[in-house]
């Protein structure tokens, strides 16, 4: 019993100290867009009366069907340094109404990046995807890979971090009871609870890290030109491999001068001019 108790204590502190240490690596890699937005005018946490005015006007323009005016207002807000997922979402709606499927998809994808898991944004993207000329079937993934990806996507980065905090408190409370109680049955029950919570803290901590890393490492773009010739190399002298159309989401792999190597879900890849797509 004494040995189990010692092991439990050691495990608890090792893992509790390890989880924040793992997550601490992320603090230096926060999304650049967010920090830039803060750096410009420090608006991230403060009220902005002009932004409010522009936002309200944009809403009114949208209701009147003046989508280009509404879009202009949303762009002004974004240019002032405020990167809010609702503003990008509304901007996407304006573009969609203006039948600009590429910019609409770009705005919605940016909104989704700022607020992963937002059901309304996902619905709009799914709806507009039907209107994109190119349809790609996602390559079949291994069952376990698909399951793991599904679990990671269950919550946003913040969601996983909050869950980690909750488990830390529950684990801490259980360990406190374990140390202070003299009742043997209770001590035994909380000992097992402590072990379970330690495992949960470790798991959710790792999932927080993976979830954040996934957002940061994935680099996607949206085709904005009506159609783009994807070439076998960086330059117009290279043969055209295939054609992509406006609104298609591409994986941005590397850059060389004015050219970017991209790939699409069916495995095709090639080079397109930087001017033909927008980075999410």
């Amino acid at each position, binding site marked *: 019993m004494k040995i189990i108790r010692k092991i439990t204590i050691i495990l608890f502190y090792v893992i509790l100290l390890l989880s*924040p240490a793992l997550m601490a690596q992320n603090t230096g890699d926060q999304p650049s867009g967010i920090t830039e937005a803060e750096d410009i005018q420090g608006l991230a946490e403060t009220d902005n009366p002009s932004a409010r005015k522009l*936002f309200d006007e944009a809403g009114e323009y949208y209701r009147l069907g003046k989508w280009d005016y509404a879009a202009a207002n949303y762009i002004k807000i974004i240019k002032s340094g405020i990167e*809010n997922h609702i503003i990008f979402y509304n901007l996407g709606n304006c573009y969609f109404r203006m039948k600009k499927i590429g910019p609409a998809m770009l705005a919605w994808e940016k909104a989704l990046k700022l607020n992963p898991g937002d059901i309304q944004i996902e619905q709009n993207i799914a709806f507009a995807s039907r209107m994109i000329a190119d349809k790609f079937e996602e390559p079949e993934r291994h069952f376990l890979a698909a399951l793991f990806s599904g679990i990671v996507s269950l919550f946003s980065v913040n969601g996983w*971090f909050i869950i980690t905090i909750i488990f830390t408190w529950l684990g801490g409370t259980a360990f*406190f009871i374990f140390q202070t109680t003299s009742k043997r049955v209770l001590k035994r029950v909380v000992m097992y609870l402590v072990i379970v919570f330690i495992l949960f803290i470790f798991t959710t901590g790792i999932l927080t890290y993976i979830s954040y890393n996934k957002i940061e490492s994935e680099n996607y773009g949206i085709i904005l030109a009506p159609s783009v010739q994807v070439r076998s190399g960086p330059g117009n002298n290279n043969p055209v491999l295939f054609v992509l159309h406006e609104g298609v989401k591409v994986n941005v792999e590397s850059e060389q001068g004015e050219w970017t190597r991209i790939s699409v879900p069916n495995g095709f890849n090639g080079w397109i001019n930087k001017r033909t797509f927008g980075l999410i």
Partner: protein
Amino acid sequence: MLLFLPESSARKNMIRKFKTVFIILFLLALTPFMQSILNADGEITVTSQVNADKIGMEDLLYFTVQVKGEDLSDVPAPQVNNVPGFDVLGRSRSTSQHFQIIGSQSKSELVHSHTFTLKPTKKGKFTIPAVEITYKNVTYKTNPIQVEVVDGSVAQKRGSNRRSLLDDFFNDDDDFFNRRSNLGRRKEITDEVIIEKVPASKEVYLGEQVIETTYLYVRDVQIGQSSNIDGTPPNDFWVEQIKMDTNATREQVRKNEHLYTRFTLMKRALFPTKTGNLKVEPYTMKMQVRGIGFGFGDIITRTSNPVNIIVKPLPRENVPSNFTGVVGRFSVSAKVDKNEIETGKALNFTVTYSGLGNLKDLPEPSMEEYKDIFTVYPPEVEQETELSDAGWGGKKIWKFILVPKIAGEIIINPVRLSYFDPLSKSYKATSSKPITIKVAQGDSTDVYTGPIPSFVEAENKDINYIRNIDGNITGSTRPYFVKPLYWILLLLPILINLGLLLNVFIQSGRKKNLSAFRAKRALANSRRILSDAKKTLKQEHGEKFYDAVIKAIASYFADKWNLSSSGITIEQIKNKLKPLHPELAQEVTDFLEDCEFHRFAGAKDAEGDRPRKTLEQAGDLLNSLEKVFNR
């Protein structure tokens, strides 16, 4: 037809015979014409025959079902599975075209010959049952055929007495007409009759149509009866027979410095299915010719020129992702018969592809994305083909019946088609317009019993509306783990437990140094007890006073030696202190014994000056002892 013959009895007989022959010929010539009249548009004739009505057990019987008609594209193949007395070994199909010139008009007819190879299983007389083909709701039936099977092998020879006139007509070697026509032959027929195949283009892209026209050139002679056009169907092409306008098939043209009458025998659209230099096999045609100086009713055979077509691959550049191999020029349209409907009620959704090219390549519009919105019934497909100056093409129509499952505004997205246009040598795309259907909730909720559509698909008839921001417009939430507050929240329970654990460790350490601690605190502890003793003196409790003094001294030694203060005795103190300081040991012993004595003496000993002196003495003793223990 006029014949100029000498007027004599022998010649009169000859004329009589010729008249008979002419009547037969006329009737023969009339037969296909009558057939063609009987075969009204869209009708077919189905006949069957065997190669012999008597065969041996070692022979094979060839049972042929012939289907004739102007358009046989949708006629089902006859089924012959169970023939009494025979095993069906296999089947083959050949296609030929029958061409007929009647006056200034020509008539073409397709013939599909389905030949079944039968092997007899036993001797006797058997009946090959009638074969039925149902086409356009009409059932065509052949006559049953009697066949006798005998032992061994029966030579399959046709006696001349059993030949029909038709058999003779199509046989060059031993021909009724040839024998008779030789009587009047004067010239060999050479370039008076020519068959020529002309492809519209000799270099095409893969899948691009080539209109191949077969012409019959005739000069100085007249064509009577003609045979089928025989030709091996090309392997590397998809062939579509083109229904011709019979009024425009005859014209006067100059060829090889001669004036010919040119009949258009046949037109067909060839769609190459592979690249390279492909050969289209020539045609062969038998026909009866007659003319002044050429004899009467010669049967000649003419073979057309072979045609080579170079087929180029489609360009690999700019291939649209949804390209399925359609080559030509097409447009697509879609419509519904009603834009407002209730759930459970049916509406017709029609998709029409029209243009030039191989209609068979056109993909079926996918209704997969609507399976949760509509019950989609299998489509009815119609095809209308036509030949224009631009080429062969037409319309292909898919008629879907859709039954809405859910109420709301439903948008049927544009139907899209990508194709390669050989004229512009580029890939092109076409699409229909989106269709909006307003679906109201109907009463008949029992129509749809499938799974409930998922939330996203059910709700996404349009994009979601714009959203509002309440309060301050700020940047989106930063990740929590870049905010100190959340780190404090994460680390707080850990720190609390760490503090708790630290306290436990400190307490544990203290327990380990308890003896030293007690020794260190011995003097202070004893003085505190003496101070308590002084308080009892004021209350004139002599017994308690001396008891406290003894306890103070005993506690001092108990602390110094880490012993229990209640269990220590004067004798123990004397024995343990003696090695350290014998005089002091004696002095302590005397003092404790004195105190013991006064304690038992009672309250009277608590009066006067004695208690004060006892306290001073105890204090001095403790000071002396502390010096000894600190050495």
